[in-house]
Every structure is written in C-alpha cells, then in structure tokens.
C-alpha cells in the first residue's frame, strides 16, 4: 500500500489516538466500560493498522518480533506474580487486600496490575498472530 497517500496520512493521524484510547480503556476500566481484554485488542489493532499501511518490514522495526513474543509471557507472569506476592505477604493466592495497608488501595493496585498483565498478553498475542500470518505471505 506504499503508493496510496490517503491511507498513509489517515493512519498517521489516527494511530496515536488509537494507542492513547487503548491506554485510557486499560487504566479507566475500574470506573467505566473497559479493561485489559479490550485495551489489549485495541492496542494490538493500532500496530496492526500500522503494519497494514506501512508494510511488515516497518512494523518489524517498530515492534521487533522477539520482544513482542517475550511480552506474551510477561503478561501472564505479571498476573501470576501478583498472586505469588499476595501469597508471600501471608494471604491467599490472588487476594489483593494484603498488597496495601490502606483499605481499598490493595484491591485497586491488585486489579490494576492484573488488568495490565491481561492487556500486555492480549496485545502481544494479537500482534504476534498478525505478524506470523503476514510474514507467511512471502
């Protein structure tokens, strides 16, 4: 799509908005509709749009496949790690109340970290899937 000017300009204008919206959905999920699953998909979609318009080579430069693949595991480990931390602090697995002495802060922190883990894994999986399918085209 390298010779199509309009998609390139529109993509350049919208991709920052898409990524910012994904971050909003990620961190505002406690208060409004949203959360890790949606944010991950939208974040991945921003990169997929970049890959569709500017080509797979450029996408690989922006998001190196090795790093993206590593992030698939980082998200799951972050999720599981929160559970391990709460266990070390003396509570049950994934019991967030012990993460902070102040009431509710522990729950807030736990939900935030867990949703972040979900978002990282989902975004990385979506990008990986797109890159492997697109890489097959040649």
């Amino acid at each position, binding site marked *: 799509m390298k010779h199509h000017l309009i998609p390139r300009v529109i993509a350049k204008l919208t991709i920052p908005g898409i990524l910012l919206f994904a971050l909003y*959905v990620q961190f505002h*999920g*406690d*208060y*409004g*509709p*949203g*959360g*890790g*699953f*949606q944010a991950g*998909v*939208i974040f*991945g*979609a921003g990169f*997929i749009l970049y890959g*569709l318009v500017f080509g797979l080579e450029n996408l690989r430069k922006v998001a190196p496949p090795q790093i993206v*693949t590593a992030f*698939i*595991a980082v*998200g*799951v480990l972050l*999720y*599981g790690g929160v*559970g391990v931390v709460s266990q070390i602090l003396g509570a049950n*697995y*994934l019991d*967030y109340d012990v993460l902070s002495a102040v009431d*509710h802060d522990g*729950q*807030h922190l*736990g*939900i935030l970290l*867990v*949703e972040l*883990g*979900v978002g990282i*894994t*989902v975004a*990385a*999986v*979506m990008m*990986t*899937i*797109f890159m*492997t*399918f*697109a*890489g*097959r*085209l040649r």
Partner: protein
Amino acid sequence: MILAIDIVLLVLLAVVGIAIIRLRNLFAVVMLSGIYSLLMACIFVLLDAVDVAFTEAAVGAGISTVLMLGVLALTKNREKIPVTTPLLPLVTVLVTGGLLIYGTWDLPAFGDPNAPIHLHVAPAYLAEGEHETGAPNIVTAVLASYRGYDTLGEVTVIFTAGIGVLLLLSGGLGRRRRDPDEPNSGGGGAS
C-alpha cells in the same frame, strides 16, 4: 421501543447469517461476518452489556476480519460447489434446532427480574462489589478480583493459542522443497 430495536437487529442478524451460508465468494463471507459481529455488538449494548459490546466490536469486527482476509490472501477466495447433497446435515440441524426451541419454553421470559439467575451471587456482587473492591464497574470487579482464578486461566489459554500459532506458522515455509544436496536438512526449518 428498545424491544422493537432489539427485534429489528435480531432479524438482521439472522438475514446476515443466512447470506453467509448461501454466498460462495469467501471475500464477501468474511465481510459479512464482520457485519455480523458489529450487529451483535449493537445488540449487546441494548442488553446492557457494554463491556461485552466493546470487546465484540474490537475483536469480531476488527481483528477477526483482518485475520480472515490475511488467510484468504494465503489460500483461495472462492468456495467450490459441493458434490454431496446436504440432506443429512439439514435434517440433523433441523432436529437439533427443534429440540432446542422446545427447550426454550422452560426458560424464564426475557428480562424477568425474578429469574433464578438474578437471585443468587449477582445481587451480592452488585450490593457489595463497589464497597469491597473500590471499582464501580462490577464487571471489572468480578473479572479481576472475585474471579481472578478464572481470568488467569483465560489469559493462559490466550497465551497458549499465541504460542500455537507461532509454532504452526513461524517455521520455515512448508512449500519449500527439501534441498536434494543436503539429505539431513529435513526438520531444520521448525526453529
């Protein structure tokens, strides 16, 4: 009014579904399945499931369509006319559907606030959720806090699916013929 919009959207959904079966051009089928997801997202909004609608719109109409188009580019985009008669599948489907419609008579009416599903667990989440977790969005509270184990499992499933796609597709191209000069090079591509 909401009921009328609901019925119109549901009829459209069924029409799109039938069109998907009848069309042979797979490009059109993929586009229609994107429309199907978008209609489904609209119905989810009507049924108060905003989080679900959000996900369905992003996943079904966005990512799935891109993936399917990618696969069409890698394979063929025309379905061949089948040689077998679809009589047996049709009978199976009609019998299954008839039994399920018979089964729906025992389901509570649409929107009934006294249905069994609304009497257990959910009232407790709605009453205590914000107080116990500090998150006004009860869907997030249940997803991340009350049922954190389930979500950990779901994330692991997504992780596994991602690794599976990588294993299936990121190796050497399957179409590549084995080099006759190197008889032992088979299997080397599966890195």
